[in-house]
């Protein structure tokens, strides 16, 4: 059903600039598999969180001052004097955490259901690029309030680059614009923190183009056989996404209004002091797994390489996973390793928050080994040796056959 309207103004514009046809095509009639579970809600949630972060961020930038002498005070000005400033700043700070929660779930969904497999490899690459951009943006944003954790986080993370052989120190000096983290660093971080979200928007657009090229995957991981397997995006998935959005906003609002500082660190309410390092430097929770990998390796360069490698390895995933079955639902052995992988990631997150010694260090080392083994050894081998369960003939068949299964995916997930 192509785009149709009786409104002459819309017709006139659409004939010359087909924005209405385009929106209709990609938001209304876009044929979507009828069996998507609630795990498929997180893509649109991530898009919404990106918008929330950009809108609140633009507003905060109207009141923030990127100067070492004024940054901390200007954040307090926002919290105390600006109308609803406290709300918008807490929204932005907690919104970052919400964005990462959503994106992490989105990624694990992709890992379980083989969303990175042909013909969606580029879609997956674009997603990994978005993750990298998000991490850079979040890191630089955390520096802006110029509290103790801002300053020392910036110092520690930029110092990672000093591990690069020969030119490491020059790179760090270049990043800082001086010989320590100081005003030039703060200024450039502010500039880039404002820029990168718009780069993310661009990559998200490409991510959607790639998505719509072959359509959404689905929990069964089989291709659609005909029109009976699809339903139009609107109203089915618009309303389902709205429902998911409502549930998610309730979750968001709980943190925002009743525990706005729980995900942050108290030390960041102490103004940056270049002469005193806090007793325990920890990054924000969403970086903890990567931080644990960094500290699990006794060698400086090795730690940095593995930390970046833990994300870059995702670019190889379409070739490392040798199984031709997409969905983990039909892969009995893969499934077990997958859940252990999830556990390893959680263990890394836990270990990243502990002092790097004793049991946490041992756990982070075991989990790091498993993390890389999962991609480099387990996935290639399981793909060869595993005997997948038989795939259903079509999407419609199990939906009809399994009765209410698809109607209540929430129960299946619980």
């Amino acid at each position: 059903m192509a785009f149709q309207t009786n409104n002459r103004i819309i017709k006139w514009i659409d004939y010359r600039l087909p924005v209405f046809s385009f929106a209709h095509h990609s938001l209304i009639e876009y044929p979507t598999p009828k069996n998507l579970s609630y795990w498929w809600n997180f893509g649109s949630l991530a898009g919404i969180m990106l918008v929330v972060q950009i809108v609140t961020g633009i507003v905060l930038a109207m009141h923030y001052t990127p100067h070492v002498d004024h940054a901390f005070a200007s954040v307090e000005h926002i919290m105390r004097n600006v109308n609803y400033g406290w709300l918008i700043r807490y929204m932005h700070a907690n919104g970052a955490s919400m964005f990462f929660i959503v994106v992490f779930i989105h990624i694990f969904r992709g890992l379980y259901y083989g969303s990175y497999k042909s013909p969606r490899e580029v879609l997956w690459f674009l997603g990994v690029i978005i993750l990298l951009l998000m991490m850079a943006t979040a890191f630089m944003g955390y520096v802006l309030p110029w509290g103790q954790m801002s300053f020392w986080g910036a110092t520690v993370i930029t110092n990672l680059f000093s591990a690069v052989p020969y030119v490491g120190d020059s790179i760090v000096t270049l990043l800082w614009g001086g010989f320590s983290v100081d005003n030039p660093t703060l200024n450039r971080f502010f500039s880039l923190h404002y820029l990168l979200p718009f780069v993310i928007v661009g990559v998200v657009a490409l991510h959607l183009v790639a998505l719509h090229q072959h359509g959404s995957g689905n929990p069964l991981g089989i291709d659609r056989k005909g029109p009976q397997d699809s339903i139009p995006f609107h109203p089915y998935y618009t309303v389902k996404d709205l429902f998911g959005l409502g549930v998610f906003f309730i979750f968001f609002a709980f943190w925002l209004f009743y525990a706005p500082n729980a995900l942050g660190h108290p030390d960041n309410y102490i103004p940056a002091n270049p002469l005193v390092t806090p007793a325990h430097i920890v990054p924000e929770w969403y970086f903890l797994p990567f931080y644990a990998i960094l500290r699990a390796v006794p060698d400086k360069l090795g730690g940095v390489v593995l930390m970046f490698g833990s994300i870059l390895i995702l670019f190889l995933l379409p070739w490392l996973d040798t199984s031709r079955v997409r969905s983990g639902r039909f892969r009995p052995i893969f499934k077990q390793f997958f859940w252990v992988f999830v556990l390893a990631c959680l263990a890394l997150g836990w270990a990243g928050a502990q002092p790097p010694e004793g049991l946490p260090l041992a756990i982070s080392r075991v989990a790091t080994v498993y993390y890389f083994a999962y991609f480099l050894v387990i996935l290639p081998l399981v793909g060869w040796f595993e005997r997948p369960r038989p795939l259903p003939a079509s999407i419609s068949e199990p939906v009809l056959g399994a009765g209410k299964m698809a109607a209540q995916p929430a129960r299946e997930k619980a």
Partner: protein
Amino acid sequence: MRKFMFAAVAAFLSGTFALAAQAAGEQDPAPSRSWSFSGPFGTYDRAAAQRGFQVYKEVCAACHSVKYLAYRNLRDLGFSEAEVKAIAAQYEVTDGPNDDGEMFQRPAVPADRFKSPFANDKAARAANGGALPPDLSLIAKARPNGANYLHALLSGYREPPADFAVPEGLHYNPYFAGKRIAMAPPLNADAVTYADGTQASVDQMAHDVTTFLMWAAEPKLEDRHSLGFKVILFLIVLTGLFYAVKRKVWADVH
């Protein structure tokens, strides 16, 4: 497997929150107390906060600034406009330059920030044996378990255990990181005389000044709590409606 996952998630979360406690190093955990501002409907006990302001003004302000507060903010604690003006006028602040190019002193007005006891951090250190009395505007948020910690610290001075060495110039306080603190016990019974007749015990003053400092750190807490309640209530209804619509729309798919 799923139960396992939940246990893992729970362990992960508890680990994340536990880190806040250990970050401050070797010290006793502050006992939990009940506060007027805790919980989803918490508000500031105005009487306690006003008494706490008095404690700040008469005791803490000798060494500690609250530089992110302005006198006008005291209106939030229930002081009248005239009272705030009178409080502000007790302080002389530097203004200028005037038409002769000179800085001059004038009585503070409500729009002025609280006057700091020292001109700068170096002066503060010099007057306090090298230790810097921290600014207190955000102290209740800048320490893990802030309110309980402040109360425990302020009322927690005691004789050190026999085997615990406390150097000259430091004081034993089990709630402070390292248990040795430069600040001398700030509160003595009846150090202030409360206008409302409340007995000024150390415990009472610690409670009151903690309420004041929590307000200083998070002045919008009441707005936040009440707006949050409305927003969440609204979202629950809206989400319920969306769910009903979703059920209707999807009824013909299955």
